[in-house]
């Protein structure tokens, strides 16, 4: 299981980011907070030993991703690597993505079964200005969000899990907001998509995949299902993105 370590100058911030990432991690990612300095009278700062302990606590050979907030957090994280055993060090990656977006994107991807390399690629893509989908290699559909809450964090995480079942690069775009850029799917995890907004999506590859993707997706976008499926006590199967019979 992939591990995720959140390093912040503030203990509360690190714990808060973990709490947020837990919403999409759903027990499929090991999370650890390494926030604050050791001195209780001067708690703001970072502590390489705390980072090292956090890494150890979530370590497996699947890998550990360490996300950091400001400048010296990176130095502490790098120093922490020095205290790790040689054979563990290679499985630990540092990433300078924005802390909140990066953590949620990484947790979503890891919960969906992505490898460390894939997670790094996604999280870094979330950072970069996304490139538009090439028209000749992809198809596009226009879908209207009718979910009252829009496409918020948890359904977006669900969407990512569904999309990962297919070998398709999926991007979504808010066409109502002219300024909104096309983004890789992971980076939508924290975008606020309001009711009634049109979104556009493009995908590639073969027909059966496209059909299934399209069906699941539309169900998610339309449905109250999207907001219900992730609730632990939902009567609906948590594994199914749709609790209604899929459209033909």
């Amino acid at each position, binding site marked *: 299981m992939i591990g995720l370590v959140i390093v912040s100058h503030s203990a509360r911030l690190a714990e808060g980011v973990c709490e947020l990432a837990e919403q999409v991690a759903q027990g499929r990612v090991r999370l650890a907070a390494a926030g604050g*300095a*050791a*001195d209780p009278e*001067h708690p*703001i*700062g*970072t*502590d*390489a*030993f705390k980072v090292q302990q956090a890494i150890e606590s979530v370590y497996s050979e699947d890998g550990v991703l360490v996300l950091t907030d400001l*400048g*010296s957090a990176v*130095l*502490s994280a*790098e*120093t922490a690597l*020095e205290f790790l055993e040689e054979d563990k060090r290679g499985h630990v990656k540092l990433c300078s993505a924005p802390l909140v977006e990066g953590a949620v994107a990484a947790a979503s991807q890891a919960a969906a079964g992505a490898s460390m390399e894939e997670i790094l690629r996604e999280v870094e893509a979330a950072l970069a200005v996304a490139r538009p989908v090439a028209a000749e290699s992809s198809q596009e559909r226009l879908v209207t969000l009718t979910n009252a809450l829009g496409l918020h964090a948890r359904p977006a995480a669900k969407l990512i899990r569904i999309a990962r079942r297919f070998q398709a690069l999926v991007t979504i775009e808010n066409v109502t907001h002219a300024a909104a850029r096309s983004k890789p799917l992971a980076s939508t995890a924290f975008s606020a998509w309001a009711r009634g907004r049109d979104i556009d999506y493009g995908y590639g590859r073969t027909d059966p995949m496209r059909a299934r993707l399209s069906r699941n997706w539309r169900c998610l976008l339309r449905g109250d299902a999207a907001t219900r499926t992730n609730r632990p006590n939902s009567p609906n199967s948590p594994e199914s993105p749709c609790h209604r019979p899929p459209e033909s």
Partner: protein
Amino acid sequence: MGNLTGMAVRRQDVLAWMEELQRVYAENRDRLTELDSAIGDADHGTNMDRGFSALKTELAANVPADIRAVLQTVATVLIRTVGGAAGPLYGTFFLRASAACAGKPQLEDAEIVTMFRAGVDGLQARGKAVAGDKTMLDVLLPAMSAMGEKLEQGGTLAEILAAGAAAAEKGMLDTIPMQARKGRASYLGPRSIGHQDPGATSAWLLLKAAAATLVSSPNWT
């Protein structure tokens, strides 16, 4: 009494250096913080003072067995307590310095220079700064060159360390007209020009204290 086999720095000299550093950073706490308030976040003095005060307490409670262990304790305490970039940077300096002392009950002059160089190499690798970025390295790099040169000329340890401290002081003053390219001061861009770098200042104090305390004593075996 046995045979005189040369001159060497012993564990007690390294401990004296640490004691001096604790005194010096306490004395310069406000000065360092004032420098940091101009181009940073106004905590470098309090951070260094806190780190070395914690070190004093730790060394009073447990005296490490040899020079390597002393420096390792310094690294650990600084990493834990300094906070900010100075913690991991000076922590890495002492960590690498300690590794260079492995298996050595005492250090000859050349080994002292090697120890400093290992520390500075580690600090540079950690911070990824280069000469002219307006950082500690603008003090440490010229000091290492001066110490290496004096060693080659056959200088005594006192002369080597004095040359290092003198080059460090010049390097510190040279940071004043520089524009910061690393750390928080770099956010200020051209407005960082005209201010002496606080990290460069604490690095100068480190070498100045070394020159005042690290002495080579006759080594009898």
